[in-house]
């Protein structure tokens, strides 16, 4: 897929606009929703649209993994947690301390406005305009990313498997209901 060699076609434009609007719109729904299940479903939609954006960047391997890991595995975890704690919020936005929070939001909004300004100013640079053609024919495929993963990044790969094992053990230990005979148990 050679989408940055030439002026983007109408199909590429419309795909980008639909996917970007999907990502941001579903994310807004996630943040503002009262019911947890509704927010989760919007989150799944946001992640699927994000996977589409990855695919338009020729990151095919990551696009598939995004759907498998985020929209699949992590969402199942969240749904289990929601089923354990099934209650909606009374008022989603806290009123107490609203001034402090609003100040924080305005400050971060200003930071992001400045960052976006810099990005727009530098849009002609080599990296951000990406006028280059695909560097190699199999850019972003499972084969070529996997080759880097198992040569240059073999040690981090093994380390991350250890981290996942620790997370699994820690998750089981933390969420286990504590019995009085345990002498307190977790937390």
């Amino acid at each position: 897929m050679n989408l940055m060699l030439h002026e983007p076609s109408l199909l590429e434009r419309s795909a980008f606009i639909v996917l970007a609007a999907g990502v941001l719109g579903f994310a807004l729904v996630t943040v503002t929703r009262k019911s947890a299940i509704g927010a989760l479903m919007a989150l799944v939609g946001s992640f699927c649209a994000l996977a589409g954006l990855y695919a338009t960047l020729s990151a095919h391997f990551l696009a598939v993994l995004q759907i498998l890991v985020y929209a699949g595995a992590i969402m199942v975890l969240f749904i289990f947690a929601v089923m354990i704690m099934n209650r909606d919020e009374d008022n989603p936005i806290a009123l107490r301390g609203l001034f402090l929070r609003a100040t924080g939001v305005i400050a971060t909004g200003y930071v992001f406005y400045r960052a976006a300004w810099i990005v727009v100013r530098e849009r002609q640079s080599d990296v951000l305009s990406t006028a280059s053609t695909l560097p190699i024919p199999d850019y972003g495929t499972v084969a070529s990313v996997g080759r880097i993963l198992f040569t240059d990044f073999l040690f981090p790969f093994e380390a991350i498997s250890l981290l996942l094992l620790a997370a699994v053990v820690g998750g089981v230990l933390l969420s286990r209901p504590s019995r009085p005979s345990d002498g307190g148990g977790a937390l």
Partner: protein
Amino acid sequence: MPGYLYILVSLALFFIGTTGVLLRRNALFVLMSLELQLGAGSLALLTFARGLGDQKGHVVAFFLMALAAAEAAVGLAVVVSVFRTRKTIDLDGINELRN
């Protein structure tokens, strides 16, 4: 499409996630907003990887994904554990370490 548009989408997504983390008081929604922020980070990584023509960004995004899975597992376990002992996950209500 030019890469700076992807970066702008990533910035906007990160900002939405930050707003959720700051404004929501339910711990579940805060964790969901954190996932949005991680997704925004991955999108920026992949965009720069495409711009530089280097696939190492893909590998880092892959590690980020594994990290997000671990974070979700442990974070949700902590939230469930807090809910078991306190019967609430309202972040404003969990203030035992105050005073």
